[in-house]
C-alpha cells in the first residue's frame, strides 16, 4: 500500500547555472584540449593510411598461398616461444614467492623490508620485458635465453605485486586463530594462509604465462629468439607467403594457450 500524501517533503534545489555545471564545462574543454594536442603529437595522418592500405592489400594477395616448406623450423620456433614464456614465468613465480610475503602489508615481517620491497617491485614492473630483453641481448647475446631473462624480470615484479594484493585481501581471522595455537609464523603461513591464496596465485601465474606467450612474439624482434625472430626476418626480406604462415602459427598458438589457460583458471574457482 502506498502511503497517502500528507505533506510535501523538501528536495535539494537544482539551479540551471550552478558552480557544478561550470566545472563540468571546464573539464570538457580540458579533455578536448588534451585530445587535440595528442592528435598532433602522434602525427596522425589519415592520408598516409589511405595510400598505405592498398599497399598492404597487395601484400596480402602476394602472400597467398602461405609457404609450407619451412613449417618444421617454424613450428620449432613457435615451441621456443612457448618455452621461453613458460620458463620465464616459472622463474618469475619462484622469485616472487618470498617477495610477495615481504610486500603484503598484513604479513610482512618488517616495515623496513616492506617499503624497499615495494619500490623494487615497482621498478621491475615499470620496465617492460621488451626493454629487459634488449638489455639482456647485449649482456648474454642473441637467442631465446635473453628473452627468458627479459620475461622473468618484468613478470617477477608484476606477479609479486598481484600476489601481495591477493594476500592482503585474506580475512585475518583464520591466521589469528592458527597463531593463537602457539604455532610458529612459518607454520601459520603454510597452513592457514597458503590454502586460501593458492588458487588465486596459480590463476595469476597462468594469466602471466598467457600474457608472456603473446609478449614473447615481439621479443624476437630485438633478437631474443622465438617465432618473433622469424617474423622479423620475413618482414625484412618482404617474404609474404612465409610471413602469412608465421602469423597463422602465432594466432593458433595464442588461441590454444588462451583457451587452455582460461579453462584451467575456471577449474580453480
Amino acid at each position: 500500500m502506498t502511503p497517502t500524501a500528507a505533506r510535501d517533503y523538501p528536495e535539494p534545489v537544482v539551479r540551471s547555472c550552478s558552480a557544478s555545471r561550470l566545472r563540468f564545462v571546464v573539464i570538457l574543454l580540458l579533455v578536448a584540449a588534451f585530445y587535440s594536442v595528442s592528435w598532433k603529437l602522434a602525427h596522425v595522418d589519415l592520408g598516409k593510411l589511405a595510400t598505405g592500405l592498398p599497399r598492404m592489400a597487395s601484400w596480402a594477395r602476394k602472400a597467398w598461398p602461405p609457404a609450407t616448406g619451412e613449417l618444421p623450423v617454424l613450428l620449432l620456433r613457435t615451441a621456443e616461444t612457448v618455452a621461453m614464456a613458460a620458463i620465464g614465468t616459472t622463474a618469475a613465480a619462484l622469485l616472487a614467492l618470498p617477495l610477495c610475503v615481504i610486500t603484503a602489508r598484513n604479513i610482512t615481517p618488517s616495515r623496513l623490508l616492506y617499503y624497499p620491497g615495494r619500490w623494487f617491485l615497482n621498478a621491475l614492473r615499470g620496465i617492460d620485458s621488451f626493454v629487459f630483453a634488449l638489455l639482456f641481448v647485449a649482456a648474454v647475446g642473441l637467442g631465446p635465453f635473453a628473452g627468458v631473462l627479459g620475461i622473468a624480470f618484468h613478470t617477477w615484479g608484476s606477479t609479486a605485486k598481484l600476489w601481495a594484493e591477493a594476500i592482503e585481501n585474506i580475512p585475518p581471522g583464520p591466521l589469528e586463530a592458527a597463531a593463537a595455537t602457539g604455532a610458529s609464523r612459518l607454520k601459520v603461513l603454510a597452513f592457514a594462509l597458503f590454502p586460501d591464496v593458492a588458487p588465486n596465485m596459480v590463476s595469476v601465474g597462468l594469466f602471466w604465462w598467457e600474457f608472456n606467450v603473446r609478449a614473447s612474439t615481439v621479443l624476437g624482434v630485438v633478437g631474443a629468439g622465438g617465432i618473433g625472430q622469424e617474423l622479423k626476418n620475413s618482414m625484412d626480406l618482404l617474404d609474404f607467403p612465409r610471413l602469412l604462415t608465421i602469423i597463422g602459427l602465432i594466432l593458433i598458438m595464442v588461441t590454444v594457450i588462451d583457451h587452455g589457460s582460461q579453462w584451467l583458471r575456471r577449474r580453480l574457482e
Partner: protein
Amino acid sequence: MGAVIGAERLTKTYRLDVTALAGVSFSARPGEFVAVLGPSGAGKTTLFRCLTGLTRPDAGAVVLDGRDICHMRRTELRAARRDIALIFQQFNLIRRLTAVQNVLAGRLASVPTWRVLSRRFARPDRQLALRCLDAVGLLDRAHARADQLSGGQQQRVAIARALAQEAKVILADEPVASLDPESAATVLDTLHRVAKAGVAVVASLHQVHLAMTYADRIVALRAGRVIADAPAASLDARAIEQIYAKNGEPAARSSPP
C-alpha cells in the same frame, strides 16, 4: 583442584582515560564452565585480550598454571599459548580446508615443521583430530569443506580444534553471538560437555538465560569491575538485573514497585 587460569587485579586504561578494567580478579578451575556477562563496554573484550596475552595490562597479572603470562618474553608466551585455546565469534576456520584439516590446525605447535609444510600429519595426530570431531558430534562431516558447514557446525569444528590442541583452558569470546538460537544451544552444550571432561572453559555471553543454563559459574562485569561472581544456580533475577542496569539503577525501574 586449584585454578588453572586466573586474573589478579587486572587494570587497563586506554588513552583518553577510558578505563576498561579496574582491578578485575577471577579464576577458573579445570572442569569448570565460567560465563562472563556484562553490557557492551563493560570490559569483556579487554579482559579476553589480556587473558590471551594479546593486550598487556597496566597492572595485575594473568596466571596460567601458576605462571604470570603478562611478563613473558615472546617465545615463552608462544609456548604458554599452547595451553590456551581460543574460540572466536566468527569461527575463523580456514575456508578451503576440510573440517578435519581445520581440527589438525590445533596440532600445529606440536608437529614438526616439515610435516606442516608437506601437509602429512602422523597417524596419531589424524586419529586424534577425528576423535575430537566425534566428540563434538561432527564425525560425519569430517571431509566437508569448512565453508560448506553451517555456522553452528563451524563453531563446533572450532571447539574440536581447541580439543586437538589439548589445551587446559578454552577461552571463547562471544562464541554464539552470530548464531541462531538452536545452533547456539548446541554449541554451548558442546562447550559444557568439554568442560566436564576436565577443561576450564571461560566464555563471554550476551544472553543471560544461556549463561544460567550452561555455565557453572557467572562472573558479571560492569564498568571494568566484577560486580558478581557466583555459581549460576545461586543467582536470581534481581542480581542479573543489576548487571544490565543503567546508571547504577535497576533496569526494571520503569515497572511499578
